[in-house]
């Protein structure tokens, strides 16, 4: 649960978790095993198509939530079930306590329900004098420890067998060892007794099917079958987001849910309950069944044009499974009750701004969650949007406000960068790094060296040295982004060299500025929009075949976010669409458009490995082009483990959470060094800054270069 009052306290909590070696190892192993397991589970399936179908069907369900609820209620009631509607968590808990009272129930067994976690149901029931026992093994463990789940599907993933052994010793009053098989059997036998005694069973529901008034339950342990069979009363608590028109919609989600959650083709048990089925413990032989359908902010959510897509979430937990930040700090720190990327969003809507305000800043925007989401939810975008909304409500912190102001004024921004070049003189080393960190950085930033501002920015070099191309095959405009303009102009120069040699005529529109991603990341929506408009005005999309950028982050932001940023201005939107359609990253342009040949490069045979920038591999779905270019440019490409996992830069993220950034970088560099390659290539100046700075601090011999640089160097 999230308790920190401010970012400082939150960072303190994060630091504590970083020291938990068991958690770190467990989550590392899980992250790697999960990726392989999921890929295997989806082998030969059209995953994208299936996710698109789910997104469409869930969107449709959200639009018709009221009608679906009426149909569901009508069919369920016709089948002998009592249906209740609860506008918030407290009301749901009151309804359930009342059902228990009316039916004279004393003891309750529960099957895992995230919705019941959301409403903190157990506390209210216990306050009403009822005994509540969780029966899902992980959920029982955390209940005994008085904790919340740290993962949506594996609630006790943060605990070791030894901790569980000690806990069970306490619970049974007999010494238990830490053998997992044995611990599971102990739980089986202890919990069997609880089923026998219980007079009420509570479950969640994975599916609420309107056409039949049925619910569907997905479990591996089978506890939902016992919970919904043995006690004479059954209560199922579900959010309105579980409503689906037909069984077919549920079966479709069932194809993705277990595969995405745990890499299983299906869980051991999927249970479909319709009507008041037989119960031999009841006087009339029929089970008393209640469905409690919870709103708790959901109906507002689905009316919101941007956030309605949150309704698509099927609670598979995959967004946590792939999140590099979750992997470092675990669910208790990467969520409040719901965890992972979706957790950051749901926390805001279900539990309020105060619980969400720190959490939403802890997204590195690597888009791994978006890529894996079973409902195709644009999670990183929604997280950033919430961050922006909270700042709009609470006021903007000074640094982000100032950066926003500065970026909006290109001339001021560029003058500051030019001034910084002189300011850094006393601390600049000859090797392009700053000797000491400037005063504004604390010591946590010492994990990487920072580069100096270049002697001559690319825009000045361009004025003097721009090449003339006689018979151009293509006309392109160059978008440099601020880092390659002012810090790494040699990367742009290298690209210009390769382009000119391939008969590409180039323009460099001088009015261009920073792409605006940093302020977008900081929640400065207005500044981000102003910068976008400025850049859109600087370029004449019709005049070029392509707009090329060597920065993956700029490319993804220009392509995907610009049209969204100016959506409310029709003329600007048209321009942004045309602009976005022309945006291409360096590797795709050189490999797929120019189609360069290996014969045009000296074959050096040096080993090079690769880091895939998040905004290239996921943001732009570019995977093969850079790797093919490495081979074509005469080097031997050696694959690196976890090549498509974030390096920990994340722009302003690395400023805000230096400890997390350092850990992500460490993993990345360990993997890089393990390849034995002397050169590390990538496609994003931000990643280069991070990787180079980290390797420098390690004293490593590995050289980091943009793919463009080796292509220029090895060009015949």
């Amino acid at each position, binding site marked *: 649960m999230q308790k920190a009052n401010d970012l400082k306290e939150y960072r303190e909590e994060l630091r504590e978790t970083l020291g938990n070696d068991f958690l770190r190892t467990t989550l590392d192993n*899980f992250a790697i*095993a999960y990726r392989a397991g999921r890929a295997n589970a989806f082998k030969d399936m059209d995953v994208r198509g299936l996710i698109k179908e789910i997104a469409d069907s869930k969107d449709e369900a959200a639009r018709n939530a009221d009608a679906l609820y009426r149909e569901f209620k009508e069919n369920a009631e016709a*089948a002998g079930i009592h249906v209740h509607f609860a506008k918030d968590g407290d009301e749901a808990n009151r309804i359930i306590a009342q059902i228990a009272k009316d039916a004279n129930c004393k003891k309750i067994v529960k099957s895992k329900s995230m919705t019941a976690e959301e409403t903190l149901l157990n506390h209210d029931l216990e306050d009403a004098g009822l005994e509540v026992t969780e029966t899902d*093994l992980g959920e029982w463990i955390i209940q005994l420890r008085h904790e919340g789940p740290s993962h949506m599907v*594996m*609630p*006790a993933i943060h*605990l*070791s*067998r030894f901790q569980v052994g000690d806990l069970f010793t306490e*619970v*049974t*009053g*007999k010494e*238990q060892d830490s053998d*997992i098989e*044995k611990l*599971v*059997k*102990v*739980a*089986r*036998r*202890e*919990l*069997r007794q609880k*089923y*026998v005694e219980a007079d009420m069973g509570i479950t969640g529901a994975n599916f609420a*099917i309107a*056409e*039949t008034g*049925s619910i569907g339950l997905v479990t*591996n*342990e*089978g*506890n939902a*079958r*016992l919970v919904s*069979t*043995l006690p004479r009363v059954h209560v199922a608590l579900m959010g309105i987001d579980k409503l689906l028109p037909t*069984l077919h919609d549920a*079966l479709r989600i*069932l*194809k993705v849910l277990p595969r995405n959650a*745990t890499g299983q*083709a*299906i*869980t*051991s*048990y*999927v*249970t*479909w309950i*319709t*009507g008041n*089925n*037989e*119960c*031999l413990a009841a006087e009339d032989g*029929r089970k008393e069944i209640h469905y409690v359908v919870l709103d708790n902010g959901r109906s507002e959510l689905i009316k919101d044009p941007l956030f309605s897509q949150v309704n698509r979430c099927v609670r598979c937990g995959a967004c946590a499974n792939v999140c590099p930040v979750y992997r470092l700090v675990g669910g208790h720190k990467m969520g409040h009750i719901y965890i992972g990327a979706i957790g950051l969003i749901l926390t805001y809507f279900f539990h309020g701004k105060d619980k969400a305000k720190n959490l939403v800043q802890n997204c590195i925007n690597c888009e791994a969650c978006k890529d894996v989401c079973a409902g195709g939810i644009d999670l990183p975008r929604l997280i950033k949007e919430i961050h922006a909304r909270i700042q709009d409500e609470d006021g903007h912190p000074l640094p982000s406000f100032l950066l926003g102001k500065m970026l909006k004024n290109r001339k001021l921004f560029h003058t500051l960068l030019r001034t910084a070049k002189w300011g850094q003189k006393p601390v600049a080393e000859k090797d392009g790094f700053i000797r000491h960190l400037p005063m504004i950085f604390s010591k946590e930033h010492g994990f990487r060296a920072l580069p100096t501002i270049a002697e001559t920015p690319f825009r000045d070099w361009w004025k003097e040295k721009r090449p003339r191309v006689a018979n151009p095959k293509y006309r392109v405009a160059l978008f440099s982004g601020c880092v390659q303009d002012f810090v790494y102009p040699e990367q742009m120069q290298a690209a210009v060299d390769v382009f000119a040699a391939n008969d590409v005529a180039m323009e460099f529109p001088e009015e261009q500025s920073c792409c605006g991603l940093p302020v977008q990341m900081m929640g400065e929506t207005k500044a981000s929009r102003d910068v976008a408009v400025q850049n859109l005005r600087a370029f004449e999309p019709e005049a070029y075949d392509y707009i090329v950028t060597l920065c993956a982050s700029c490319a993804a932001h220009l392509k995907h976010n610009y049209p969204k940023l100016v959506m409310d201005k029709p003329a600007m939107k048209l321009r942004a669409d045309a602009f976005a359609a022309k945006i291409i990253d360096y590797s795709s342009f050189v490999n797929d458009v120019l189609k360069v040949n290996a014969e045009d490069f000296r074959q050096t045979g040096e080993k090079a490995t690769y880091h895939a920038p998040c905004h290239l591999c996921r943001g732009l779905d570019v995977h093969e082009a850079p790797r093919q270019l490495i081979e074509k440019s005469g080097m031997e490409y050696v694959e690196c483990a976890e090549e498509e996992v974030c390096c920990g830069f994340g722009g302003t993220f690395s400023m805000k959470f230096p400890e997390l950034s350092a850990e992500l970088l460490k993993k990345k560099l360990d993997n890089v060094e393990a390849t034995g390659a002397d050169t590390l290539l990538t496609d994003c100046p931000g990643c280069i800054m991070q990787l180079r700075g980290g390797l420098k601090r390690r004293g490593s011999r590995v050289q980091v270069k943009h793919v463009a640089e080796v292509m220029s160097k090895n060009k015949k």
Partner: protein
Amino acid sequence: MPSKEDLYQKFVEKAGLVSAKVTSIATEDDALKYVINLCDKKEACQLMISGCEADLSDKAEALCDAKQKKVIAAPGLNEDLYKKLAAQAKKAGFECISEGMRDHLAGVDIGFTFAEYGIADTGTLMLDCPGEEMRLATMVSEFHVCVLPKSKIKANTYAVEKMMLTRMKKTPDYLAFITGPSRTADIERVLALGVHGPLELHILILED
């Protein structure tokens, strides 16, 4: 359109991947023989009665003491078949029941059932069990033995959707997809079988 043989092969492969034990049988009598044999070979009680190495709280121990001899639960069999099974069980010294599962919540050794359908692409059994005895027999048994007629193997869940809907509209209804034994990975993500439900799932595919 995959042939019956393709579906069968696929089913066997997928069920095997989730630790189900699949055997082909020629007749229903073979199924009875299988159950009696299995019951004979298995330990008296692998999970529930005292004698297990793990200590329990006193209350849970008490529940275990309720079970005295090996029990086969076979609710939902047709009368003739049940009679045959009961006779063979008696001869072997086992108790055989078709109802009263609530008196056996400490666990039965074998639950013996017939599946309505098999789903090839996940190795899943579909059992319709609106009756409570069937549900409990498939849950509190240590081994679940289930007969699946070969002709009832369908390609995927969409292929059983109509049948499911027919049942769900004729309420009340309690349908189960069962795929392998009960499992958990909640402690350190280590797979452990038989957490609440059966420790083993035996599928007998009946040539028909």
